[in-house]
């Protein structure tokens, strides 16, 4: 049973001295029943006040919440030239209060949010953008140099390093790639069928799904999935290595982290992505076929032949080339963010998030560029 805090006010000496008599249990659990404002108001109502003292004889239990209360009153007294008499406090309370005052607040340690102006903010961001663009270019340059050194046989990548990465980003990704591409094929077929059925041209669903999947969507879907799956994983792996000083340990051994960690990852993903893309193409066409056969009453051979006729080999190669580009981009984005990771656990999470964002943005930009280029070149 906790007793409420009771405060009695007693004035002596023609309203010059105020004695606060506190009784009950002054605990953090019933602190909310006491309003500091009311006490301050009471003090304010006595204009001739010279000192404030306390009578805590009736006080039963107390904890550090009484200190905040006393401190509150003390600060008020200080700013209004009223003496705060602490002799009357119990020894324990006085001792702890003295402890809190023992080290005066250091000037300038309080963090103040600097209000920067709108224009300064824009300037800051512009500067940050250029430095981050420069970091990115630096990184791409380093990777290029490392690849050139690899091609000229200056160092070798061991299979024991490359194979686990390949395994991790290939077989493991198959189920989700199957599901997503199949569904995308299905969706494309549905959306197309609604329009095409009106003209009695259901059979063109096969062309629609075939061209869309094989030329663009297969590669893009595989790219986006790998950005979320493998790009983030790369960033987290390298970020954790950064946190654990493992990357420093490589550097001080004279082993370039780019050659040892980044190049195998870029290589692995650029090998695997075209294969995943072909697989995604197949699954997408399968999705379209399900709609074609079961909803549009098309014959299997009919659908197959229509797909084969309408999809040119060019479309296929464009899709495969795109997926190769995406593989490089996703791996680079993941490794870049991982290498930039700061030395804390939360930074690893940020690195993974930012890797996914960077990878997906670069996939979309690359798709746009490749599409425009193909258009210009008339492929």
């Amino acid at each position, binding site marked *: 049973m906790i007793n409420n805090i009771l405060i009695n006010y007693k004035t002596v000496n023609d309203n010059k001295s105020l004695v606060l008599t506190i009784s009950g249990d002054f605990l953090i659990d019933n602190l909310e029943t006491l309003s500091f404002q009311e006490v301050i108001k009471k003090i304010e109502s006595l204009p001739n006040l010279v000192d404030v003292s306390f009578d805590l004889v009736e006080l039963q239990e107390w904890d550090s919440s009484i200190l905040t209360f006393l401190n509150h009153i003390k600060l008020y007294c200080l700013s209004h030239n009223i003496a705060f008499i602490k002799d009357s406090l119990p020894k324990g309370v006085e001792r702890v209060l003295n402890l809190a005052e023992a080290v005066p607040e250091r000037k300038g340690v309080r963090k103040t949010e600097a209000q920067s102006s709108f224009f300064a903010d824009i300037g800051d961001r512009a500067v940050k953008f250029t430095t981050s663009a420069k970091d990115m270019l630096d990184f791409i340059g380093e990777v290029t140099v490392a690849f050139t050194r690899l091609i000229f046989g200056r160092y070798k990548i061991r299979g024991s390093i490359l194979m686990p990465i390949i395994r991790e980003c290939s077989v493991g990704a198959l189920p989700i790639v199957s599901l997503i591409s199949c569904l995308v094929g299905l969706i494309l077929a549905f959306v197309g069928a609604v329009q095409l059925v009106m003209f009695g041209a259901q059979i063109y669903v096969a062309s629609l799904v075939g061209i869309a999947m094989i030329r663009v969507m297969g590669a893009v879907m595989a790219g986006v999935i790998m950005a979320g799956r493998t790009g983030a994983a790369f960033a987290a792996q390298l970020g954790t290595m950064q946190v*654990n*000083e493992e990357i*420093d*340990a490589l550097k*001080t*051994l*004279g082993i370039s982290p780019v050659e040892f960690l980044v190049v195998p990852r870029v290589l692995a993903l650029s090998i695997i992505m075209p294969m995943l893309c072909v697989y995604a193409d197949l699954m997408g066409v399968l999705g379209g076929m399900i709609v074609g056969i079961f909803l549009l009453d098309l014959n299997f051979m009919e659908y197959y032949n229509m797909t084969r006729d309408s999809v040119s080999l060019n479309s296929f190669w464009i899709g495969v080339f795109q997926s190769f580009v995406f593989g490089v981009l996703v791996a680079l984005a993941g490794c870049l963010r991982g290498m930039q990771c700061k030395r804390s656990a939360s930074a690893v999470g940020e690195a993974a998030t930012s890797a996914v964002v960077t990878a997906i943005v670069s996939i979309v930009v690359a798709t746009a560029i490749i599409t425009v280029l193909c258009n210009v070149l008339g492929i």
Partner: protein
Amino acid sequence: MDKKAHITVENLTMAYGSVVVQQNLDFTVNKGDIFIIMGGSGCGKSTLLKHLVGLQKPANGDIIYNVLSKNSSLEQKSSQKEINFWSATEKEQRLLMKNFGILYQSGALWSSMTLAENIALPLEAYTNLSASQIMELASLKLALVGLAGFEGYYPSEISGGMRKRAALARAMALDPDFLFFDEPSAGLDPVSARLLDDLILELKESFGSTIVVVTHELASIFAIGTNSVFLDPVTKTMIANGNPKELLESSKDERVINFLTRGEGRL
């Protein structure tokens, strides 16, 4: 043994951007020393170590290493060479890195590799030994630190103390002339910390490496240190240099005495 300068630090200034961490550092680490870098938290001990191992470029000043280059193929005689890491050629830098063994604070074992592979990597990078020879050497190094039989374990599967010892084995993989330890006993219980100290002493006796240790464990400082430098975070420079035991007896600096006696003053 005659005292020969192994690492010479001249007028070193360390800074992150425009924030100076320490300045005007001048000291010499002699061959065979166990050199302690000490000082309160946040005074730049680890930063100094990063400079000594070539991870960070000095803002000003030089760090010069005296390295024995064992160029067996061309000249039969090995020659003493003075190398400044940041102005050295790539070949000289590699020679230096080969001679650095570093024990990081967290161990920093490569988590995707087994203990044996961790120790094998430096050997693969700098020697032309066959795979079986390398594995034999790796097993030997693990046995030296009391981890025989743990070759196939991954760093995440062993305890913190074992990880420290495995990291020590990796640092010694190439029998380096310079060993750098960043807080070797941090996170270890007193007995393990003491055993690690003994191990460090024994290694020094057996291999004659020069050892640089960052630590603020007083017990370790007095047990193994033969020379030291004391960094002060307020004045941003070194305020003492010498054998820690002698510093305790003869230093007149209040801050050094306070540190070495846990704030209790000289008895």
